[in-house]
């Protein structure tokens, strides 16, 4: 890493080279960087996949560079003998609920930030970032203390509340940008043509808001699936989510193959969602720029 950083400064600021030379240097740097990225992404993930496929009979120990035999036995075993199916069900029930609730809570505030000017608006916008600057475990522990004293005993409801607050900053930020992109002339035109509020919303607001709504839903969904501090502190031991199961295999008793299975179950769907999100945002832009929809 340090090496790349050093070489890159050199290229980035080398002024008098002709364009071709810079192109060549960039290509060389790219090869170097791709190698490093392979080492820091491809190798670790390949090892995780291999570990999840290790045959319990033969194991994978020093000095074997690769596991001697592969099997999907671990996947079957983790699936049938641990609380993983329940944890997956919990996580995938919690995350969409959090995503939708957060969007509903965030939208009025975002609308206000985007379409109104009022004294103290800058300060109010900074205040929305509060959940991001409180350390996660402090929030988790004293939130759990708070809900005990309020007499709320539903773990699902408690985690739902905490996740909504924690991820509101993302949803508010995304939706503020989206509401800001709604064009006033389209709203006026729809009104002048006698459209009712619902029709105005569908014609003028919806096309501009849709990418933001989807982006907010996906980002909050991913964050909620991955969140560990609150799910662990508030949910333990009755309500398990995928990260808390993973922690149980990494913490007190370290079971590498099981941790590999759970890691992959946690990461792969989210990476696919992220890729979908990128595509979605790209494809949404042209229609919006043209004001069609």
């Amino acid at each position, binding site marked *: 890493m340090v090496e790349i950083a050093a070489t890159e400064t050199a290229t980035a600021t080398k002024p008098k080279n002709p364009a071709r030379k810079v192109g060549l240097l960039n290509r060389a740097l790219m090869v170097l960087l791709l190698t490093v990225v392979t080492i820091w992404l491809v190798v670790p993930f390949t090892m995780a996949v291999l570990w999840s496929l290790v045959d319990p009979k033969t194991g994978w120990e020093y000095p074997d560079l690769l596991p001697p035999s592969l099997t999907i036995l671990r996947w079957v075993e983790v699936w049938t003998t641990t609380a993983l199916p329940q944890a997956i069900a919990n996580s995938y029930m919690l995350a969409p609920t959090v995503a939708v609730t957060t969007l509903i809570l965030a939208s*009025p505030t975002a609308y206000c930030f985007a379409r*109104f000017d009022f004294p103290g608006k800058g300060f109010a916008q900074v205040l929305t970032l509060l959940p991001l600057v409180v350390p996660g475990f402090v929030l988790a522990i004293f939130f759990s203390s708070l809900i005990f004293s309020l007499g709320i005993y539903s773990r699902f409801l408690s985690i739902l509340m905490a996740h909504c607050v924690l991820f509101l900053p993302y949803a508010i930020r995304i939706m503020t940008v989206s509401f800001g992109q709604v064009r006033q002339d389209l709203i006026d035109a729809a009104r002048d043509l006698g459209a009712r509020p619902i029709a105005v919303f569908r014609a003028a607001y919806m096309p501009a808001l849709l990418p933001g709504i989807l982006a907010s839903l996906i980002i909050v969904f991913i964050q909620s699936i991955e969140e560990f501090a609150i799910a662990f502190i508030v949910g333990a031991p009755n309500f398990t989510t995928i990260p808390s199961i993973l922690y149980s295999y*990494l913490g007190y008793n370290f079971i590498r193959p099981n941790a590999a299975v759970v890691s992959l179950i946690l990461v792969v769907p989210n990476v696919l969602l992220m890729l979908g999100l990128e595509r979605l945002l790209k494809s949404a832009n042209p229609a919006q720029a043209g004001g069609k929809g």
Partner: protein
Amino acid sequence: MNWRRTLLIIALLTPGLGVIVIMIGSVFYVAVMQSFGFYNLVGEESFSLEHWQKVLDSKQFSRALRYSAYIATVAAIGSVTLAYPIAIWLRRPFRGSLVISALLKAPLFVPGLVASFLFLNVIAFHGIVNQFMMWIGVTDAPIRLQNDRGAWGVVFLQLWKNMPFALLLLTGAVQSISDEVLDAARDLGAGSFARFRKIIAPLTVQAMQAALIIIFIGAAGDFAFQVTAGPTNVQSMAQYMVFLKDSFGRWNQAAVVGVSLMVLALCGSLVLAVLSRALLRSGNRW
């Protein structure tokens, strides 16, 4: 008309901003009050400085505080230092630059626990690092790299996870500097380091401060990396807080650690923000 507008604005802000302020405010309130002996889950409630005294007197606390401050500072400064040259390199798009930037940002989407696990595999006895060291002859037998005492593992994980975040913020800021400004500086004879110090750094100082602050706070409150890959002879603040809560339910003492962690996060990020600005200013006087 005016008061109706005010009411409308308040009504619109309540479900989003209102919920945030009430919830975070209450959590903060509970933590502070608990540290002074109130809001006890069991037992009597009364004002007391005993919990503060007990925690502040313990060696474990001062070690945890120093350790978390150290990890957070190294993570924040290290990530920004690594991200700057890459952001400058990626300032103007070239063939493949989008792929590079996407790959570099990938760790942003890997949860902390998974990152820890991937790292533990790479440094395991038969992991690639040990195999490589034996292949080049540095060592004859694999070395135990997990939970190293110098916390290099935790620092590496922090940089792996946070450098992409710094890169994300800095790329945007660096890209918004116009070519004319940089060309003008070049024509006036500014070398590459002078251009960085006098133009790029001052124009991107806000993004740099944001990256420093957010990374510092995140790393100061780290639990996942420390528990899985960190040294076993010292605890991080979050780990110590969870430990106090879990062992004999010492909630009040956990609250003292929690409040101290918030103070550390606040002071540390303020110091970094002020220092980065001051350094730039003194640099420009040369």
